[in-house]
């Protein structure tokens, strides 16, 4: 290799250059085995080509492999983070890209040294792409992202199967072809570059790589990995949905036919009605005829006959009188009284249909009307049946659509177990693990999470896992004997609460500080939170709460006050119906629209209420609701940031088009004003029995006994109530119970450092009023900037004069 400084290795230390020389020397070794390997086979992981035999002898082969995997993982992580920060269209930060290029170069070299030719090749592609980027070539960032994904995929296959998969490399090469990048020629089976200078090699590489103009390139879609079983389930449900088209169309046709028949029957009836209405007195007749059917057709019929006869008389001038009435002498000069007499007669006139001479036009009309009414009734019944069938089919289709939607959403999900192998490796690689002193427990690894979210979380979780197996300063200071006798427990617990996933990574060790600060940014991006707790095992736990992004959620639809809300099933252990005599841990959701779960202070009426008993993880709280309406499974969507409220985790749209709030009862209870008030009152009375209401409290968090003592003395003399703690964890515990006026905070502290604490404080609303003054020996601008970004109100460096300190406190505390 030409050792002439190039832009690539400018500014590197002699040690860095030596490492690079080693890697370049390894390229020969890296490529050589690959030439011997058939294209379609993979190579087993081996340590045959370890660069430094002396070093290798000090470690077992297994150790070296683990180290190699861990190192490549970290390098990939560096590349991924670096590429994520490159924004399309922005001016390239050449220095940063050079740094990434070095990382890719390192992967190429180390992978080659371990005989991992595919990883090495992908590393080389990545390096080349980055180099082209610095030289101003129009390289799509998607290609780089895909190259990183290829590195990860290949490494993953290596870890799981012990062999490198060629699939990711082939996909990447296909992407190059799609982008008209002739990057693959020679490089995969390249001869050792040791005979050419770096610059010549670059020129050759550039001549091979001739990117097409941007507009000619196809855009590569962002891809996710899809489990075959999930995809097949989606296909099955899609098929079922498609199959419903025929019954649905048939049901629609039946409704249409029934509607047509009903319309025809109604039209016929309308025609008859109009015909009937031309009869005199039709209104009164119709009233008496059809509304009083029980009184007999005979009476109405007789009036109708009379009407017809009257009508006929008017039309043709001939007067008809019925036989019976004629016999009674009616009709002779009594036309005006005919109707009244006819109505008033109590003697019923029965119509015999067989008596042809009595079969009048009215009777015909009556029969036709009856038939028409019967037709309408039959058509209505037919329509009802058709509608019922249509509704049934639509319900099936809706259910099928929900399945398809749920399946489609689940394609994005992946179980947390997919990351467990890496976490286990981190734990196993720890020194303690090698002595067999660490017990690693896993629970809830089948909990599913969005792939994108897991990708983002990977590094924070690995970091937390590393933290949990690394004893903190205080742990290291404890006697060796005690440490040796201590069996270290490390755990990874995941719980799906429906609307959010809770991951706890804990250790029986008191661990190093700084972990929270490291993962905080990622969690903020994901709208998640982290809390740190002392656990029962005597160590510390990190609890991450991550909202699930979009996804289908099953929950219980309940009525609380005037609103319908959804409580995720994942939080409900069971539903009891109680008299509510025992109000311990009992809350009610019924005081909506305030929508906060308030403690049940008054004894309610003796009535059975549904009570949701929450899982013990949620302190076994019980929440009374007004009614349980049923279960619901719909897509849950998060609320816009400015309308997010504590305890409301998302919304669903029900079948009626109304918005339903999805609530987390535990969070509601936590944020209920009465509850908060009661808790703080109780805590204040315990912690500050002598504190006067106007007294200003200053919490001093500093691990130096002398500095802490001096500060407490100064503050007390200045009239403040001063409380001291010697580590971040104690400070957090104090803060969770009290909100001091001012917090004097050091950066370097055991368990949780100052940055950790600031990060955690920002997630607690009740600490928003606490004024934080950083008091630290770190004077550089980057520390100041970081602290201010995390919410510090002032930054003082040690040594700090009493006057400056007190003036700062006074200005902030008022």
């Amino acid at each position, binding site marked *: 290799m030409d050792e002439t400084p190039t832009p690539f290795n400018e500014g590197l230390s002699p040690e860095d250059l030596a490492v690079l020389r080693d890697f370049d020397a390894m390229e020969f070794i890296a490529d050589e085995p690959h030439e011997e390997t058939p294209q379609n086979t993979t190579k087993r992981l081996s340590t045959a080509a370890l660069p430094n035999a002396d070093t290798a002898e000090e470690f077992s082969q297994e150790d070296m492999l683990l180290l190699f995997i861990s190192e490549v993982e970290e390098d990939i992580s560096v590349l991924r983070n670096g590429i994520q920060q490159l924004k399309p269209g922005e001016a390239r930060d050449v220095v940063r890209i050079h740094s990434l290029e070095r990382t890719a170069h390192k992967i190429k070299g180390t992978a080659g040294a371990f005989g991992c030719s595919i990883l090495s090749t992908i590393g080389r592609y990545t390096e080349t792409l980055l180099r082209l980027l610095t030289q101003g070539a129009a390289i799509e960032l998607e290609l780089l992202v895909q190259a990183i994904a290829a590195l990860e995929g290949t490494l993953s296959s290596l870890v799981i199967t012990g062999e490198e998969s060629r699939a990711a490399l082939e996909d990447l090469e296909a992407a190059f072809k799609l982008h008209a990048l002739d990057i693959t020629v020679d490089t995969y089976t390249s001869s050792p570059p040791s005979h050419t200078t770096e610059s010549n090699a670059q020129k050759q590489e550039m001549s091979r790589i001739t990117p097409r103009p941007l507009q000619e390139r196809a855009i590569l879609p962002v891809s996710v990995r899809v489990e075959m079983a999930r995809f097949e389930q989606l296909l099955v449900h899609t098929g079922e949905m498609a199959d419903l088209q025929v019954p649905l169309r048939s049901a629609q046709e039946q409704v249409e036919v029934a509607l047509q028949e009903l319309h025809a029957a109604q039209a016929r009836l309308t025609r008859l009605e109009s015909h009937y209405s031309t009869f005199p007195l039709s209104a009164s007749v119709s009233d008496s005829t059809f509304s009083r059917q029980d009184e007999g057709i005979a009476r109405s019929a007789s009036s109708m006959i009379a009407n017809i006869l009257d009508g006929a008389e008017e039309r043709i001038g001939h007067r008809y009188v019925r036989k019976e009435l004629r016999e009674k002498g009616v009709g002779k000069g009594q036309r005006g009284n005919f109707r009244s007499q006819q109505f008033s007669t109590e003697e019923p006139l029965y119509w015999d249909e067989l008596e042809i001479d009595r079969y009048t036009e009215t009777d015909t009309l009556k029969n036709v009307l009856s038939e028409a009414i019967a037709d309408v009734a039959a058509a209505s019944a037919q329509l009802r049946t058709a509608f019922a069938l249509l509704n049934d089919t639509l319900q099936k289709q809706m259910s099928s659509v929900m399945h398809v939607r749920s399946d489609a959403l689940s394609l994005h999900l992946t179980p947390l177990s997919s990351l467990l192998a890496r976490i286990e490796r981190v734990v196993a690689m720890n020194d303690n693990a090698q002595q067999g002193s660490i017990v690693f427990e896993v629970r809830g690894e089948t909990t599913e999470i969005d792939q994108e979210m897991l990708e983002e979380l990977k590094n924070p979780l690995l970091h937390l896992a590393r933290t949990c197996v690394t004893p903190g300063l205080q742990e290291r200071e404890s006697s060796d004997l005690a440490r040796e006798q201590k069996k270290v427990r490390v755990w990874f617990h995941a719980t799906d609460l429906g609307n959010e996933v809770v991951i706890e990574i804990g250790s029986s060790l008191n661990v190093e500080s700084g972990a929270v600060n490291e993962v905080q940014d990622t969690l903020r991006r994901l709208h998640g939170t982290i809390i740190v707790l002392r656990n029962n095992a005597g160590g510390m736990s990190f609890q991450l709460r991550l909202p699930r992004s979009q996804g289908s959620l099953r929950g219980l639809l309940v009525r609380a006050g*005037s*609103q319908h809300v959804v409580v995720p099933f994942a939080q409900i252990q069971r539903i009891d119906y109680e008299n509510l005599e025992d109000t311990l841990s009992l809350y009610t959701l019924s005081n*909506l*629209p*305030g*929508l*906060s779960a308030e403690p049940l202070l008054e004894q309610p009426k003796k009535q059975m209420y549904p009570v949701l008993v929450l899982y013990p993880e949620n302190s076994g709280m019980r929440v009374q609701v007004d009614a349980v309406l049923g279960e619901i499974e719909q897509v849950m*969507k998060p*609320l*816009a940031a*400015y*309308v*997010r*409220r504590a305890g*409301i985790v998302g*919304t669903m*749209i029900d079948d009626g*088009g*109304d*918005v*339903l*709030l999805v609530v987390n009862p535990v969070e509601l209870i936590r944020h209920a*004003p009465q509850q908060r008030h009661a808790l703080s009152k109780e805590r204040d009375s315990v912690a500050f029995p002598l504190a006067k209401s106007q007294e200003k409290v200053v919490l001093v968090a500093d691990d130096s006994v002398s500095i802490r003592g001096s500060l407490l003395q100064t503050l007390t003399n200045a009239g403040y109530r001063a409380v001291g703690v010697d580590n971040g964890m104690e400070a957090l515990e104090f803060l969770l119970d009290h909100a001091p006026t001012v917090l004097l905070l050091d950066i370097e502290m055991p368990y949780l450092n100052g940055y950790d604490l600031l990060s955690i404080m920002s997630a607690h*609303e009740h600490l928003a009023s606490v004024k934080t003054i950083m008091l630290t020996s770190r004077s550089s601008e980057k520390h100041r900037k970081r602290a201010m970004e995390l919410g510090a109100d002032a930054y003082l460096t040690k040594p700090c004069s009493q006057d400056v300190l007190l003036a700062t406190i006074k200005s902030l505390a008022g």
Partner: protein
Amino acid sequence: MNTHDYDSALAAYLDVSHVHELAQLSEEAFWNYAQKLADTNPAIREQSPAQMDKEYLECTFGKGHFLLSLAALYEIVPPPRRYTDLPDKPVWMAGLAAWHGSAIVVIDLTLYLTGDTVSMDHALSESLLIAHAGDVSLGLLVHSNSNIIIVNDMLPMPLDDVRLPDTTAWYLPTRHTVIMGKYADAIVLDVPALLADIVRQIEIAASHG
């Protein structure tokens, strides 16, 4: 036709009364009117950005009227039959409603501007205007008669009004920050500023309970 100062021939009215008015025109007057519309329609149809920016929705209610740029509106839809309540919300926030499968915040724009529930004339028709600016989409509930007009020469707010808001105006003095200018006797709302103010106030309501 209309008593407004601006050219009524260029206005496309949404209310039924306009149809009746058209029916009463003489043939000659009708064809003249149609000719004018025909002359202007191609310009409207082509919807160049500059022309779109000139189209405003005029909302008239008992106390006054205001204009909103059509370019800032996604859709005008009937109001939902019910709203989902949210805790700690400003009084003028009606609640959440479903729009295109998502929950959006709906605010009563008339109430927001006037601060006065009495002034609302419930006999006026209600419409829900879906407005957007940046990544915020909101439903603006208006109780008013609405017309689409083209505004050619909007006047900016008088400096005096900017410095010292007009306390005699029908809208709240604190709302002067969301007013972009005036057109005839109507105020022209600055939709991005309006949405930003609404979001800010909803956030404040959340933090102050």
